[in-house]
């Protein structure tokens, strides 16, 4: 009896180890090298993934694929599918936590499109070293009666002053992204939150604002910098909604070697100035906003 029990335990352990090894190997560095291709999951957004075949993150991951000696392949996804396409299980925010649900085929090896590092996301994926600074601002149309805040020098005070202008004001937001109102406790401001459909992209926020879909909108800083250049005099920045944030590349938790290789590659490009040149190409003014981040 004992021997039968022990054999069952040994067999179970063997199966577990083998299965663990198989899961760990799926999509990690060795597997990618064997397949000869690195699949880049991306959502067209701002100047990270322009949708025209280039962008800051497209060039970054393409360079990473070249450093690995494999072929680069871009796989387009959206905010509701992105985590499922990377990990094989869908994920969404519930409160402050992540919720996993439903299986789906794995389509890519990493997500890189200016993804903001958030707590619930960190439960689902492993992030690389930060690649870009960010934050969320409240933007209004130029004609709006809302006036920009007077900066106090402390961002927490500025956030409070900005939120103080929100009661009764309609705010455009997008769940499951960095513009998710739940992340910033906007419900408590008595603002009229208008969620855009999930299939919308972040770079559609300003057009929706100019279309009078809402009086204000949340917008991440990189996108706001582009919008100020593209629509000069038509929009204004009221103030910050979030603390300073960071963006990074997301990996499957089962791809530690790939993540490590990427971090190593990123450190190399930052050291030799290649990464700074890339940022200068796509976000020239970001150096003035976030001095020190790219040093």
């Amino acid at each position, binding site marked *: 009896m004992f021997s039968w029990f022990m054999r069952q335990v040994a067999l179970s352990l063997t199966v577990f180890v083998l299965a663990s090894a198989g899961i760990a190997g799926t999509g990690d560095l060795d597997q990618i090298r064997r397949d000869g291709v690195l699949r880049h999951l991306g959502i067209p957004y701002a100047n990270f993934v322009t949708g025209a075949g280039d962008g800051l993150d497209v060039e970054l991951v393409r360079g990473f694929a070249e450093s690995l000696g494999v072929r680069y392949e871009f796989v387009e996804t959206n905010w509701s599918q992105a985590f499922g396409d990377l990990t094989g299980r869908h994920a969404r925010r519930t409160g402050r936590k992540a919720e996993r649900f439903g299986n789906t085929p794995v389509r890519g090896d990493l997500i890189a499109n200016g993804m903001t590092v958030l707590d619930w996301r960190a439960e689902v994926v492993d992030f690389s070293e930060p690649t870009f600074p960010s934050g969320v*601002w409240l933007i209004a149309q*130029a004609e709006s009666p809302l*006036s*920009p*805040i*007077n*900066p106090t020098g402390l961002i927490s005070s*500025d956030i409070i002053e900005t939120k103080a202008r929100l009661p009764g004001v309609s705010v455009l937001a997008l769940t499951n992204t960095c513009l998710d109102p739940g992340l910033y406790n906007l419900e408590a401001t008595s603002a009229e939150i208008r969620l855009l459909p999930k299939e919308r992209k972040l770079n559609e926020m300003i057009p929706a604002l100019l279309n009078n879909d809402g009086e204000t909108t949340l917008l991440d800083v990189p996108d*706001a*910098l582009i919008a*100020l*250049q593209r629509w*000069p*005099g038509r929009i*204004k*920045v*009221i*103030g*910050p909604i979030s603390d300073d944030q960071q963006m990074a590349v997301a990996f499957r938790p089962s791809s530690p070697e790939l993540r490590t290789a990427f971090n190593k590659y990123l450190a190399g490009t930052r050291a030799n100035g290649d990464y700074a040149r890339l940022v200068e190409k796509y976000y*020239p*003014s970001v150096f*003035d*906003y976030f001095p020190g981040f790219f040093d």
Partner: protein
Amino acid sequence: MKRHRLRFSGNSTIIMVGAIVVLYLGTIIGFGHIGQARLRQALLLQEQLVIDRQAAEVAHFVRQLQQEVENLAADQSVTSFLANRDLGMSMRYGLRASLNAVQRRFRSFAQSLRQETGVAVSQLGFHDADGKMLLNLDPGDAASDLSLRDLPTAPSTTPMLLRDQVHPKLAFTSPVTIKDSVRASVTMVVEAKTLLRPLLDSSSTLSSPQRIAVTDKDGNVVAAEHGPVWAHWYSAAQRHGQPIKEARIGETGLRIVSLSQATLNNGVITSSWFLAALAGVSLPLVWGIIHLLRLNNHNLVLKTRYQSTTQQRVMLRQQNERLQREIDKRLASEEKLAHQASYDQLTGLPNRNLATDRLAQAVKWAKREDGKVLVMFLDLDRFKQVNDSLGHSAGDELLRQASKRLQRAIRDSDTVSRLGGDEFLVICVDAPNKNQWEHCAQQLLNALSKPFVIGGHEFYIGASIGVAVYPHGGDEPIKLLKNADIAMYAAKERGRNRYCLYDPGMDVATVQRLQLENNLRHALERNEMHIAYQPIVELVSGRTIAVEALLRWDNPQFGNVSPDRFIPIAEETGLIHEIGEWVLYNACAQIAEIQDNSRLRLAINLSTKQFSRPAHLLDAVLRALRHSGLMPFQLELEVTESLLIDDDPEVVRLLGQLDRIGVRLSVDDFGTGYSALNYLQRFPFDVLKIDRSFTAQIPDNDANATLIRAIIAMAHALELEVVAEGIERREQAGFLLVQHCEYGQGYLYSKPLSLDELEIHLGTDAALSA
């Protein structure tokens, strides 16, 4: 066109050349002096033009810089910043991005201005409308010793000179206007020496160096090419009275000052020394010319004589050559004429003239020496067939070949000549016995008996030779020729390709007939035949309604030969086909040409022999009608009763064919022949012609009158028209009219007429009818 050359003696040439040289030098010196004065003025004017142009270039450069600043003030980054600023955005949240964009734009502008124009921007920035400085960019590539805070912000379209600086500078300012409101101003400061840049660029292309500077309106130097030494240069120019040129730089209040560097002595040609040297050179030239004059006088007489002799010799040689050419040409021409007069052009043999002359010489010799002369008259037997079947060129070739064979067949001392056509004459002097001349004649026959090859065809022609020997065959050249000719016809009569010696007993009639036949063979080609036309008139009106074609032959030997004489020969030899066809063809053509609207009919007699080739005859009729354009009913073919006797089915068919195509048929000489009346019904005749033998005796001869009445009645019964021939008297015409004879012909109305006469006759006839 003859060229005339002015000739000068050596002396006058040298004097002229000397005078020209002295005049030339004097002119150069005089005009050189005038030219120097004008050149000086031109140089000064040129310098003024240059400095004016340079001032314009600097003014343009200043306007360009002003325009650049204005463009910068209108840049989107500037207006965006001001718009965002108006929206109340803070530098911390958004406005800094706009200001950074302005800063990047200004920095980019300063760099591109430096690269494109070489202008170093000292300061670049902009103030808002309240004078608050928003951006002060120091590009870092020019010495900056001022602050934009110190500058007035009022916009201006011309640069402001900042004189209270160590290095004078120029400030360009442009307003930033949004919605017709001045919201800010952009200011750019550059060093004043920048203005010298276009001057340096343009002065580098000038041939003479320039000393230039830019000053303000009070004369203070703002920028100079060689700053430290400018003051020294300027005072030196004033001391030496050197021209100093000035020009305003647009509306800037600045000026360009230029010190002239060019002097007239710079160029060799324009210097005064050059004029002095020219004057000095003229003296040895004049001396040289005088010396040349003396030398030339010594040689002049000798040279003139030599030239004259040479010229005469050349002229004489040319005249001799011309004369020799003229003589050669004339000799050649005479030789050619003599040859043409005595020799046949085709064969190269002696012609009839030369042959006659040689025969006369031979007879003279024979009389004097009691010798013998052999005359052989040779005629080719089948030459005509060759000529007709292969054409004249083949006939000519045959004659040439035959001539060569004949030449080879005789002795060198004999003469063979061509008399014309295919007739040759051979004269052999000193042919004493019969054997010798027989041998000679046989040689000739042998020579011609071998086949001739012409155009790939082989021919056997043969010859007939008549031989006459002096003195038995005639004691005079003409007689010898005539008798040899008779003997030749005798040879032909005896079967051709043989020779025959003249014998006084030869049948002259037979010979003449043969001669006539021979001539008849050539009658058409020699144009000896022509056609006469006898009018046929309507007896009631006397109007000519038709003509009968009558063939005439005028032969040089036999004179006017009657058709009764040559037609039988033609029929016998078969020539009748050719002659008959010729008459058909030509008569139709001639009548068609002269006919008027009356549609004149043409009656042509056909020989019975012509019907032996029915198809040929029908074809000849059709061709004659087609070629002439004559209508078939205008052609009336006359046949005699003898044709109808045999009742030949070929003849019957042919007459039917002619009738069907519309040709009228007529029975000629009715009453003289067989007169089996039934044929008049069987054949498609239209006309019946009463022979002249009946007409001649009416109305006196009752028998004939009765006969004619019967003939006319019978013809009318058969619906035939009747033509009475040989009407010469009015009584005859009257009788025939009473008998209702429709038509008649004869000397009472008209004799046979030539074509021209017929045309006149028809014209008169038409006039009378009208």
